[in-house]
C-alpha cells in the first residue's frame, strides 16, 4: 500500500448494496483516463477494496489518502467520483461538503477495536495484506513456541467467553474437549448467524476471514483436532466466497494442510453451507446438519466436547470468539483481561440497528453503558422520536426499556434484566413500535423455526403466537396475559434445546416492562403505538388531501371514494385496515387512530 495515492472503498454487503462496486469501477475508469494523460500517474495510485468499516448508514464510504493524510467521504455515488478525482486526487483540493462530519468521529472514538481493527483497512481477499498486519504470527507462535496446555491456560486466564450467546468460558470448554481420550477431534466454526438483526459474524468473515481461520488453527492445535469445519449460512454468498478464497490462500502458504509451520501438526478446514434452518445455530443441531441430517437437537449430556461430530469430541466456537484468539496469543491474556468488566472480558462486536441515527457495526468494551452506545455512538433516535426500548439477543433475547438505560452491556447485565447478549444484535425501538407486535414478530419467527421435535416448543410456541395474534387483532380475552405468562414459563422450563428455552423471552420481557400495552390491546382494544391495523381506524384529513387519488388506487376493496382534485373519503364499513392508503399518500393526509 505504498502508493502515493490510495482510495479505499468499502466492499461489504452493506457497501455493495449502496453501490460501492460501481463507485470503485468509476475510480478505475477515471484513473485510467487520467493515467493516459500522464504515463507515470496510473502506477502511483491504488484503488483498494476493504471490508465493512462500520458506519454503514453513510455508505458508500470512501477514503482518499494522499501521502500520509487521509480524508473520508460519505454517501458517495458513482456520479460523484469524477469530481473527487479531478478536484482532490489531481487538484489536491478536498471537497469539504462531501467529507464526513464530527458525528463520524464520535461514532468511532467511543469504540475499542480488537476484532474490527483491521476491517476497513485491509483487502479481505489478499492474504498478503493480512500477513502484513502481523497475520498468522499468533498461529506460528502457538504451534512453535507453546504447548496445547499453555494455550488453554492462556485462554482461561484471558477470561474469554463464547460470543455466540451463552457466554461459556472458552478456555474451560477447550480443556473439557482436550481431556477426552479419543483418536480424533473436531473444531467447528459456527458462522450460522441466524438472529434477525445481527450481522457481526457476516461482516467479520467478509472483512477479515483470515483472522477466523487463524483462530481455528490455534484452537485445533490446543485441543488436538486435525479437521475443522466452518458452518456458514448459504444466505451469505459474499462471506462464503471470501472464506473459500482465504482457505485456498492459506493452503498455498502452508498455513493449512500438512506439517503447519514446520511442526508435525496437520490441520485442514472444510466449508459446510447451512441450508436455512435457524435451529442449526444450536450445537447438537449444527452437528446433525454437518452430518447431513435434519437439524434436530438432541438432549445434552453428552456434550459435544465429549461426544460431538461423528461421535468424536468436538469444539464449536462462533466467529467472533475465534477472531479474538490471535490477538490474545499475540498480546497476552493479561492485556485481554484488562479490557471489559469484571466477569465479561474483552470487547463485543454489536450490530446497532433499528430506529437509530448511526446504524452500523460497532465494537465496545464489555460493560459499556447502554446509553453511551445508543446516544453517543448511535447518535440517538432517528427522526428525533422518543426512545422506547432496545431489543438485544434476537429471538432469544428481550426488550430493555428506558428505565434500564444505564445498564452495563455485558453477559450479566443483560441477563439481569431478562434479556441476553445473544450474538450481539441491538435493535433500537422508538415510540412508534408496538411491543405486543414485536413479541408477536419474534414468536412468528421461533414458531416457524422450531424443529418440531419436542412438545413444548412445537405446540407451545404455536399457542403463544395464537394468543399474541388474537391480542393484536382485538380479540384478546380476560386472562390472556396470565395465560401467556404461565405458558411462556412452562415452555422455557421444559423445552429440549436453547431455541425452545429462550423462545418465550421476548414475551416474558415485554410482559414485564410493557404490560400496559398488552392491557390496552385487550381491554381498550387500542394499539398505543398505532401499529396493529386491526385496532385502528383510517381516515382522510380534508384540509390536507389534494385529491390525487393515489389512496383510492391503492385500496383493494374500493373503500375510498372522491372526485379528482377534491378531498377523498374512507368508508370505514368497507375498510379492511390494510394500510395501503396510508403508504400510498404522499401528503400524509391519511391518518390512523
Amino acid at each position, binding site marked *: 500500500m505504498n502508493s502515493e495515492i490510495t482510495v479505499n472503498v468499502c466492499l461489504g454487503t452493506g457497501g455493495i448494496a449502496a453501490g460501492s462496486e460501481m463507485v470503485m469501477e468509476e475510480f478505475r475508469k477515471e484513473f485510467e483516463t487520467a493515467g493516459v494523460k500522464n504515463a507515470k500517474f496510473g502506477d502511483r495510485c491504488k484503488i483498494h477494496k476493504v471490508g465493512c468499516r462500520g458506519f454503514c448508514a453513510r455508505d458508500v464510504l470512501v477514503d482518499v489518502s494522499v501521502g500520509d493524510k487521509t480524508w473520508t467521504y460519505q454517501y458517495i455515488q458513482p456520479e460523484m467520483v469524477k469530481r473527487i478525482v479531478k478536484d482532490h486526487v489531481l487538484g489536491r483540493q478536498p471537497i469539504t461538503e462531501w467529507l464526513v462530519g464530527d458525528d463520524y468521529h464520535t461514532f468511532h472514538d467511543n469504540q475499542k477495536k480488537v476484532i474490527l481493527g483491521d476491517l476497513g483497512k485491509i483487502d479481505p481477499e489478499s492474504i498478503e495484506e493480512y500477513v502484513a498486519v502481523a497475520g498468522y504470527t499468533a498461529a506460528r507462535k502457538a504451534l512453535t513456541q507453546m504447548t496445547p496446555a499453555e494455550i488453554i491456560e492462556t485462554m482461561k486466564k484471558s477470561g474469554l467467553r463464547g460470543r455466540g450467546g451463552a457466554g461459556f468460558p472458552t478456555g474451560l470448554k477447550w480443556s473439557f474437549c482436550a481431556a477426552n481420550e479419543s483418536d480424533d477431534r473436531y473444531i467447528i466454526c459456527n458462522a450460522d448467524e441466524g438472529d434477525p438483526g445481527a450481522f457481526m459474524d457476516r461482516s467479520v468473515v467478509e472483512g477479515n476471514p483470515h483472522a477466523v481461520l487463524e483462530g481455528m488453527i490455534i484452537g485445533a492445535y490446543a485441543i488436538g483436532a486435525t479437521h475443522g469445519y466452518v458452518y456458514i449460512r448459504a444466505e451469505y454468498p459474499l462471506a462464503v466466497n471470501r472464506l473459500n478464497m482465504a482457505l485456498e490462500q492459506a493452503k498455498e502458504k502452508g498455513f493449512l494442510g500438512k506439517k503447519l509451520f514446520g511442526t508435525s501438526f496437520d490441520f485442514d478446514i472444510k466449508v459446510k453451507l447451512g441450508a436455512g434452518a435457524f435451529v442449526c445455530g444450536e450445537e447438537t443441531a449444527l452437528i446433525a446438519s454437518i452430518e447431513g441430517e435434519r437439524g434436530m437437537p438432541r438432549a445434552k449430556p453428552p456434550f459435544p466436547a465429549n461426544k460431538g461430530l461423528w461421535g468424536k469430541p468436538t469444539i464449536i466456537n462462533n466467529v467472533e470468539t475465534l477472531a479474538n484468539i490471535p490477538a490474545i496469543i499475540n498480546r497476552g491474556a493479561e492485556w485481554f483481561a484488562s479490557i471489559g468488566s469484571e466477569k465479561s472480558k474483552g470487547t463485543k462486536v454489536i450490530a446497532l440497528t433499528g430506529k437509530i441515527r448511526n446504524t452500523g457495526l460497532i465494537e465496545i468494551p464489555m460493560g459499556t453503558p447502554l446509553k453511551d452506545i445508543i446516544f453517543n455512538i448511535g447518535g440517538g433516535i432517528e427522526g428525533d422520536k422518543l426512545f422506547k426500548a432496545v431489543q438485544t439477543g434476537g429471538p432469544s433475547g428481550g426488550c430493555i426499556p428506558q428505565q434500564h438505560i444505564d445498564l452495563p452491556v455485558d453477559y450479566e447485565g443483560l441477563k439481569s434484566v431478562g434479556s441476553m447478549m445473544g450474538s450481539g444484535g441491538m435493535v433500537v425501538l422508538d415510540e412508534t413500535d408496538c411491543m405486543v407486535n414485536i413479541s408477536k414478530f419474534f414468536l412468528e419467527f421461533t414458531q416457524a423455526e422450531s424443529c418440531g421435535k419436542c412438545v413444548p416448543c412445537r405446540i407451545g*410456541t404455536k399457542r403463544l403466537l395464537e394468543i399474541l395474534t388474537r391480542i393484536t387483532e382485538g380479540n384478546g380475552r380476560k386472562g390472556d396475559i396470565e*395465560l401467556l405468562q404461565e405458558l411462556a414459563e*412452562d415452555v422455557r422450563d421444559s423445552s429440549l434445546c436453547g431455541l425452545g428455552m429462550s423462545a418465550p423471552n421476548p414475551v416474558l420481557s415485554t410482559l414485564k416492562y410493557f404490560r400496559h400495552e398488552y392491557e390496552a390491546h385487550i381491554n381498550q382494544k387500542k394499539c398505543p403505538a398505532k401499529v396493529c391495523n386491526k385496532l385502528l381506524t383510517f381516515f382522510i384529513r380534508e384540509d390536507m388531501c389534494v385529491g390525487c387519488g393515489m389512496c383510492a388506487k391503492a385500496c383493494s376493496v374500493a373503500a375510498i371514494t372522491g372526485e379528482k382534485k377534491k378531498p377523498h373519503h374512507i368508508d370505514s364499513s368497507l375498510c379492511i385496515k390494510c394500510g395501503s392508503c396510508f403508504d400510498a399518500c404522499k401528503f400524509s393526509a391519511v391518518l390512523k387512530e
Partner: protein
Amino acid sequence: MIHLTIDDKSIEVPAGTTVLEAARQLDIDIPTLCYDSRLKPYGACRLCIVEIAGFPKPVTSCTTPAADNMVVRTNSALLHRLRKTTIELLLSDHPNDCMVCVRSGDCTLQELAYLYDVRENRFSGGMRDHNRPDANPFIQRDQNKCVMCGLCVRVCEEVQGVGAIGYSNRGFEAKVCPPFEKDLNCEFCGQCVSVCPTGALSGKMWAGQPRQEGVKLTDSTCTYCGCGCNITLHSHGDRLIRVSSKKTSHNRGWLCVKGRFGYDFVNRGDRLTTPLIRREKGGALEPASWDEAVQFVVTRMAGIKEKHGPDALAGLASARCTNEENYLFQKFFRSVIGTNNIDHCARY
C-alpha cells in the same frame, strides 16, 4: 457400579444406566410417551423430566445417565405443572374422539390425560390436518393423532432397517410420513403399529372389532416360519380379531407381516367344516358324518394292509402341526399299521 438416590430410595446401577431405567428398577413410575427400552432414547416428549440436585432446571430422565451420588426427585409441584402443560398442549392438537378410537383403553395419551386430570383445555387453537387416505391393506395411519414421539420412525430404522417412514417438515407442521407423502410401501411388519402410543397407527383389520369388552387374550406361538415367535391371540367369540406380541418374549415383541396380519385365514368361509367322502372312484367328494368317515378310513386302510402288507401304506406328517400330533401320527403308522413309511416335507 454407580450409587444414586431417587425419591429417597437408594440404588446401585451399572455405569451407562439412565436415570429413567434406574427409577423403573425401583418401580418408580415416571410418565413417558417417546421411550421404549428396545430403542435409543429420544428425549422429545418431555414427560419423563425429573429434578436433579445441582442441576439448574429439570432434565429428561430417559437421556440422563445416572451419576454417582445423584439425588433425583421424580415428582414435585413444578414437574407436575410442566407435565400437565405438555399433556394439555398435546391434547390441544389431538382429535377428541376417544369414544370411537380403535386404541381407546390401550392409549398412553388417553391414560395420561386421565391421570393428570386434563379436562377443558386452556390452549385450544389451530389443529393440524395431516390426514390422508393410505391405500395399503394393513396399517391405518391417522396422523392427526400423532404425538411425534418418533417411536415408529426409530423402530423402522433401528430395528427393521427399512426407513420406510421419516420425519418431514418442521415445527407445528412436522409430521411422520413416507417419502413425498405417498402411500406406505414397505415390509408391513407392523413394528411401528406395535410401538405407537396413540391411535395414530393401528391395524386396518382391527377396525370395527371389539376393543376390550369380551376380548380374550391367549399366549401362543406363530404358525408360519421357523423363527417361533411368541404371539398373543386376541379373540372374540370364535373370531381371531388381532395378533400382538409381548416385549418380554424371545422375539422381543417383533413380528413379521405374516405373523402380525396374516391370521384372517383362520376365520375364512371356505374352511372345511365337515368330513368329505368320495364314495366311488371318479365320483365327487360328498359330505359325510365323522363315524362314516372314520369307518371308511379304517376299513380301506385295513384292506390295503391285508392285501399288500403294511409297507403298501404311507403317512405324510406335517411340519406345520404340533409335536403331539406328529408323535401320535408316526406312532400310529409304526405301531398299528406296522410300517416306517412315514415322513414329512421338511425338505421343501
